[in-house]
């Protein structure tokens, strides 16, 4: 029986070196990092080191790094934190995001919409890439936040974060120098107050961290979320970068942990693991993954008829391949492949627990049929060419079987 893991965008295994550095912080160095005694201070030292590694990875200061329980919490904190800090109940404020965000962002925005916040959802192109001008078109005087994912989690397409960052900078500098009397919405609010002057830019960078430029200054982001378990680190830990000076209200109340922005006892072992995981990113062999992914796509086209690529080929992380196999249903393929020892994922409605196919695939204009027949293969550096060959052979057999089984 084969045991092939092609679902690295869902989660990655914990790297053994990461696990190793975490272990002493469960039973031996277990002090509360907030305690003043030496038990606590020893734990704090490890937390500080981990924070410094993350700060180094993102090119920022250590006090701009907030550890959270994961990227979902980091996204919630970023978006709700900015909205809550901007007197959203009295002022009509506006945020911009995209149609194909991860639920951590999308559902947070929908929640805020119910609370009276105005939200624009920008549609990606059919190539799965957001156009900067489509973001620009949505910007209004009361826009306070733009949230665009760095890499889409289903189709792996890379978004123009740097360009959007430049746009936000430009708009912000215009706002500062602009005469308030020229803007009706600012005037009617009777104040050219700081809260409406600046647009903050947030990116969910969970799927980018292994593959893309992550320097927050170069990217021009104010807020950035990353996750441990997508980068060979542990589950249950994430990071939110918050640029100094960002007005953000905490959403989890309690002690004064994490620069008073996120209450809760510091999770020393997971923080240490996160620090090690980002440190190891520099050592990863992206060329190997890219070679395998390119080979996979070539073999799929060679062996299976009516298979089409979803999302841009050029603007895509090297791990990701998302295809639609015409005339079959994705969940059936997933089950059949699982029985053959291969783990992949699908955007079919039948695997989602809802009755709707992937919102990502629908947003880039796929038909329901194509979305139901979609497969996402996300490779890791442990995968081999032999595994790809076996997968293609199995998928070919299954596609033929299910096509034969379908009503003509």
């Amino acid at each position, binding site marked *: 029986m084969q045991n092939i893991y092609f679902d690295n965008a869902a989660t990655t295994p914990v790297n053994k070196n990461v696990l190793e550095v975490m272990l002493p912080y469960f039973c031996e160095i277990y002090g509360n990092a907030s305690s003043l005694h030496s038990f606590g201070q020893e734990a704090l030292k490890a937390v500080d080191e981990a924070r410094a590694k993350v700060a180094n990875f993102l090119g920022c200061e250590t006090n701009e790094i907030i550890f959270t329980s994961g990227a979902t919490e980091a996204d919630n904190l970023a978006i709700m934190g900015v909205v809550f800090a901007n007197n959203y109940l009295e002022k009509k404020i506006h945020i911009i995001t995209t149609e194909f965000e991860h639920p951590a962002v999308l559902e947070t925005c929908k929640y805020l919409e119910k609370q009276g916040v105005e939200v624009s959802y920008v549609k990606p192109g059919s190539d799965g890439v957001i156009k900067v001008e489509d973001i620009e078109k949505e910007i209004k005087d009361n826009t306070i936040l733009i949230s665009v994912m760095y890499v889409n989690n289903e189709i792996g397409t890379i978004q123009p974060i740097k360009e959007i960052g430049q746009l936000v900078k430009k708009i912000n500098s215009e706002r500062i120098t602009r005469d308030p009397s020229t803007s009706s919405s600012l005037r009617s609010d009777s104040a050219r107050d700081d809260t409406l002057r600046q647009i903050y830019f947030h990116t969910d960078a969970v799927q980018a961290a292994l593959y893309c430029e992550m320097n927050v200054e170069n990217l021009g982001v104010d807020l950035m979320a990353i996750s441990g378990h997508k980068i060979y680190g542990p589950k249950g830990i994430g990071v939110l970068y918050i640029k100094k000076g960002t007005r953000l209200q905490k959403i989890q109340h309690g002690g004064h942990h994490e620069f008073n922005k996120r209450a809760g006892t510091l999770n020393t072992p997971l923080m240490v693991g996160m620090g090690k995981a980002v440190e190891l990113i520099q050592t990863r062999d992206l060329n190997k993954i890219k070679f395998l992914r390119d080979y996979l796509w070539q073999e799929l086209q060679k062996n299976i008829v009516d298979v089409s690529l979803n999302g841009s080929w050029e603007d895509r992380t090297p791990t990701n391949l998302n295809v639609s196999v015409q005339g079959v*249903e994705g969940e059936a393929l997933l089950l059949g492949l699982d029985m053959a020892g291969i783990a992949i994922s699908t955007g079919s409605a039948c695997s989602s627990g809802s*009755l709707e196919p992937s919102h990502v695939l629908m947003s880039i204009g796929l038909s329901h049929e194509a979305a139901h027949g979609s497969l996402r293969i996300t490779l890791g550096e442990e995968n081999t060419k032999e595994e790809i060959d076996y997968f293609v052979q199995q998928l070919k057999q299954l596609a033929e079987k299910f096509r034969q*089984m379908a*009503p003509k």
Partner: protein
Amino acid sequence: MYSSIVLEHFKNPHNQGVILDADAVGQVGNPVCGDIMKLYLKFSEADKDKSLEERVIEDIKFETLGCGAAIASTSMLTDLAKGKTVAEALKITKQNVADALGGLPAVKIHCSILATEALEKAVKNYSASLERPSPAV
């Protein structure tokens, strides 16, 4: 998520295929929801003088485009309906199919078990064809 019975029927479905000289054919579902099912029925020749309700389903085959639960539930329905009279077969409910499969996730019971509807459709199509006068030769 799925019981071992579901997985077995998914892997090796029973009565999968077509009946070229079927007496009744019914298709339900649509590409938007992702599941399409087609049933082919052959009635026993021995009881051809009986009413439709009393006729025995001698053979039944299916074609399905759909998820694991869709394939397994159609397979199971064909097992349950084969050898039964039309009246008996029409009494098979979605819950009966789910129970025979050792249970299904709730969302799948509603969206994936289209097989009972395909059976109703086939019988309906057949009785409609009986009511229509034969075309003049």
